[in-house]
């Protein structure tokens, strides 16, 4: 019996417990007796939870524990003595035998796996039976105890609600756990990286070539991890070129839509701009690589600048288009938040609409717009697919937009695809880059939100 089937069985028992307890509690209600504290269904839930939850928790733990026990018992068997001592080969045979035993594979590539499969099968069967027995015991014990407490005075509702409350709290703790998981996994792998490469070299080095020699005697690269060219490429594409495209277009779109456009045009154009934000980034990346990059290269060649197919300009342009709706919706919000009296006052003094916008509305809305731009920058530097598909891999330190630069996210993808060895600085460097990216976007977001909040308070 597999663990999945045992889980289903326990859930079935829970349903039975619910029905039984509800029937018992339903018998309490009678016209001549005092009203019971809880409804029958609540008694049902109390008993069902006590039947299923402890047993399921046990199964979850058992799943982890039994894996190790099965492994130990297989390794202790006489058949396993013939296994090669070399670690990777042994693991390959064992995982193949496991696949055979669980029916995921039909034929073994390695004859030894065929011998080990029955051993595995019997060990899995043995430990699953133990799991089944204990789980049933836990379920019956919990259920019986809870069932014995069902009485007219028993406050089942309070108990059940307390459990639900705990469930709610646990669900909201997942967010903290995720944040913690991100920080810890990035920190842990980064620390391993920094034990091999000095943080000073990483943060201030000018040379990036992460290829490591596979053999000790191999000529050539021993790996250089100076990330400044990556940081520069990221800023160049995400914070400079993309913003040169996105800020004017986004800001002017927002101004036109809020101040000039008829409500009909606004109703049509606003969702249309939102679509730009909804297009998957891989589509933008393909568009950049297929259409924009060749056009940019031709442009560069026609004005006499040697241009690469993977130019910073192509990636930045397309990223700017993607960012337009972020800038425009933030600008829209902050312009709408400027008090009407300021606008009316300016118009009453005889200023034209455009003078009012340029001299009154935009300066008043500036903190909000700046906050929006910061959020857009944080979004742009974390963007991956456009730069992976349209920007290059060459870590150039150049300000020529027709040249190829590489970014932090491109390098993370590059370092983590292909062979992964978690003891080589090449793989671990990706986590260090991830840590920097995480910290920078976090800082940008905090600053942006604070700026926006301060500004909102100014007019409230």
């Amino acid at each position: 019996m597999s663990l999945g089937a045992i889980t289903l069985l326990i859930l079935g028992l829970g349903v039975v417990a619910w029905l039984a307890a509800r029937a018992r509690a339903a018998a309490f209600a009678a016209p001549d007796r005092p009203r019971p504290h809880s409804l029958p269904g609540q008694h049902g839930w109390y008993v069902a939870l006590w039947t299923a939850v402890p047993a399921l928790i046990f199964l979850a733990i058992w799943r982890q524990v039994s894996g190790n026990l099965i492994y130990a018992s297989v390794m202790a068997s006489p058949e396993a003595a013939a296994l090669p001592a070399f670690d990777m080969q042994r693991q390959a045979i064992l995982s193949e035998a496991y696949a055979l035993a669980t029916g995921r594979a039909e034929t073994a590539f390695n004859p030894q796996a065929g011998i080990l499969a029955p051993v595995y099968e019997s060990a899995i069967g043995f430990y699953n039976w133990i799991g089944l027995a204990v789980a049933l015991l836990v379920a019956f014990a919990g259920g019986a105890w809870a069932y014995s407490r069902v009485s007219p005075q028993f406050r089942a509702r309070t108990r059940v609600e307390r459990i639900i409350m705990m469930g709610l709290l646990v669900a909201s703790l997942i967010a903290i756990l995720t944040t913690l998981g991100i920080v810890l996994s990035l920190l842990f792998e980064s620390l391993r990286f920094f034990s091999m490469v000095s943080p000073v070299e990483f943060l201030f080095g000018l040379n990036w070539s992460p290829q490591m020699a596979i053999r000790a005697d191999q000529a050539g690269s021993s790996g250089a991890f100076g990330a400044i060219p990556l940081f520069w490429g990221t800023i160049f594409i995400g914070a400079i070129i993309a913003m040169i495209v996105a800020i004017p277009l986004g800001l002017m779109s927002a101004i036109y839509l809020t101040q000039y456009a008829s409500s009909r045009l606004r109703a049509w154009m606003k969702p249309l701009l939102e679509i730009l934000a909804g297009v998957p980034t891989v589509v933008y990346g393909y568009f950049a690589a297929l259409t924009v990059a060749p056009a940019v290269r031709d442009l560069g060649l026609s004005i006499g600048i040697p241009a690469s197919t993977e130019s910073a300009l192509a990636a930045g342009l397309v990223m700017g288009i993607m960012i337009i709706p972020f800038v425009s919706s933030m600008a829209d919000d902050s312009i709408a938040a400027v008090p009407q009296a300021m606008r009316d006052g300016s118009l009453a003094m005889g200023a034209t609409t455009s003078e009012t916008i340029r001299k009154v509305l935009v300066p008043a809305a500036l903190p909000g717009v700046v906050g929006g731009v910061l959020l857009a920058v944080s979004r742009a530097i974390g963007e991956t697919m456009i730069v992976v598909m349209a920007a290059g891999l060459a870590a150039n330190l150049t300000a020529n937009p027709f040249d190829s630069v590489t970014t932090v996210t491109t390098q993370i993808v590059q370092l983590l695809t292909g062979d992964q060895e978690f003891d080589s600085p090449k793989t671990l460097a990706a986590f260090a880059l991830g840590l920097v990216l995480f910290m920078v976007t976090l800082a940008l977001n905090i600053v942006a939100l604070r700026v926006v909040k301060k500004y909102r308070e100014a007019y409230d």
Partner: protein
Amino acid sequence: MTDMAASIDPSPTDWNGEAMRRRIRRRYAAERRFKLLGLAAILVSAGFLAFLLVTMFSNGISGFARSEVRLDVDFPRSSLFLDPAALEGFGADQALAGADFPEALNEAAQAQYGDSGRSLFSEGAWIGLRDAVRDDPSLLGRRATLWLPASTAIDIAAKGEGEAEAERLKARLAEAGRVRTGINWTFLRGSDSTDPSAVGIWGAFKGSLLTMIVTLLIAFPIGVLSAVYLEEYAPRNRWTDMIEVSINNLAAVPSIIFGLLGLAIFLNVMHLPRSAPLVGGLTLALMTMPVIVIAGRNAIKSVPPSIRDAALGIGASRIQVVFHHVLPLALPGILTGTIIGMARALGETAPLLMIGMRAFVAAPPGGFADPASVLPVQIFLWSDEVSRGFVEKTSAAIIVLLVFLLAMNGLAIYLRNKFERRW
């Protein structure tokens, strides 16, 4: 303004004077220029969107069509030693698997089109031959005319972008009425392949579907429950602040960071299977959850407090108030937010590359633990291919993805308009 204040002229302003008129004209011209600039910004943004969509559609629409070349197969004389009787009932599949269809195709093509005849047909064209025989075993007894998928070169030539030689070949075939265009069912039913004329989208689509199921099953309950807790029950203390800060930050973390988390936790610590929809779904669920929490909180906040007061007043417990009254009323808003979050997850590529979902997967995944690809990753993989035939397939896959995203967003807007209540 200061320089004007410095030289105050006591006489009243002559508004009809030439200087003032010029000034007004200049200001109005600036007004018009500014307005046009705004309109231009809108039009440029919308134009980019239109250009993007038109490029994708014009490139991709031909991916749904394929060219077929006529082949006359003389079955009795072919090297296909198959007994029509063996193709009835059980054992039919085995008999088919044992027969050498590629060789039969080879012979027939060479007999009809000369030595290079085989190169007119797609590498997987023999599958069409096999399926024809399976569907109608009586073919084996006679000479039959079949339409089989053309090779990539001919296919591209038929769509008007081929190389000169293929173009000439195609023109000769077309003159003889031996080439036609049909719907590319392989593209809708097949999986990844190295030959662009044999690739299909179904495998990636199924992978996306399985991944989205995992994402929904995890992100939706956790997201809704945390939203309920934070909005209705959470005491104001440091823990609650920490939860709120975490959720707001998670919503802004770059998606690739979630990929690193998935790689470090799900693959390296928990040893879940690589490239599997299970891991992809878990990773995307962590990314989608904050979106659902934020949408859920807004929806719950918009339920008026009088509903809660009324329920509490007639004796409901605080849990009953939320689960019987507040949640059902907030559900349309929560669902809208969920669909938008899922649409974002469906188009997400970067975190899935981190957890190994960029492998070549030639068969649709059978379960949550099988190696799988998803639509956006498939687009990425095809976009990397050198062969010319993959361009239209990539664009066609993008069309499929965009259609699904549009449908999901449309559903969200419909739900919002239909069920949204103003209190």
